[in-house]
């Protein structure tokens, strides 16, 4: 019998563990920062690896009444109750219901941990500040503080999420989205 396929995210977390063992994260020896790419619909985004806690198949998410629709609800993560943000809805990319095979990236900023619902995770990529452009592509759809900028990876544009900016974004607290 063939072995069970790895859990979603396990391949990436293996890379993270190996990279940490080699002390290459979050900054590589060449001055590049490590990012994890995540897919939201047809668009590619990335989060700094230093914010990454866990990647897991979307668990049961308990909906919370009277919160903006991009806050999907709460989840139990190892005995800790975390809010879950649907990044697609936050960035106004889609209003569709979350698919069963979506992924939650548990990210932290300071002591705050948050679940981020994404369509899929990609690779760990080293990016240099020189790779960034000045203007985030999404300016106008969300506050600029939510992004560090845009970089090009394998011919595709990647919007670099600023997690601190996202968690402090007034858009996250807006009620009329």
């Amino acid at each position, binding site marked *: 019998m063939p072995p069970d396929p790895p859990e979603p995210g396990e391949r990436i977390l293996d890379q993270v563990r190996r990279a940490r063992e080699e002390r290459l994260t979050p900054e590589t020896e060449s001055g590049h920062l490590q990012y994890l790419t995540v897919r939201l619909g047809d668009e590619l985004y990335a989060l700094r690896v230093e914010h990454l806690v866990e990647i897991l198949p979307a668990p049961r998410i*308990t*909906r919370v*009444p*009277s*919160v903006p629709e991009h806050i999907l609800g*709460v989840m139990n993560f190892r005995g800790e*109750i975390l809010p879950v943000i649907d990044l697609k809805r936050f960035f106004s990319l889609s209003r569709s219901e979350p698919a069963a095979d979506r992924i939650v990236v548990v990210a932290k900023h300071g002591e*705050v941990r948050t679940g981020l619902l994404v369509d899929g995770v990609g690779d760990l990529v080293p990016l240099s500040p020189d790779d960034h452009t000045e203007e985030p592509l999404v300016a106008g759809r969300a506050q600029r503080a939510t992004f560090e900028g845009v970089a090009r990876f394998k011919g595709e544009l990647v919007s670099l999420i600023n997690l601190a900016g996202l968690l402090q974004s007034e858009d*996250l*607290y807006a009620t009329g989205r």
Partner: protein
Amino acid sequence: MEGIALPATLDILTFRIGPFLLGTDAGPVARLALLTSGVGDSAPQVDLRLWCGLGPAAGARRHLLVVGGAAGEVAYVVDQVGDLITVNLARQIWPLPPLIERHKRWRRLWGVCAWEDELVLLVDLVPAVEDCRAS
């Protein structure tokens, strides 16, 4: 002087409003009743679907959850009454995450309780004076 022993557990009555699984301290719950057309409890009624940001329920049999307090009684209309559960205060109840706490528009939401493989949102339904004036 002997200290006052605090209870280690809390009895919670769960109920559903649309897609939401909620729970409230069972202590102040005075009675449960079926909401029937034309005949209701004498206590002022509050439809919790409105508080949850939902539209009116269509055609479903709904229930009254009558909660009492110093200000009087209020009959909360819920979609479905669930289970009476006993949870450990230290191990099964958490405050709302700060993001939810900061954001909530329903101020009576106060916590989360783990029950079996589900999370129950905890809400304080003890009536305030203004609730008892509702009609």
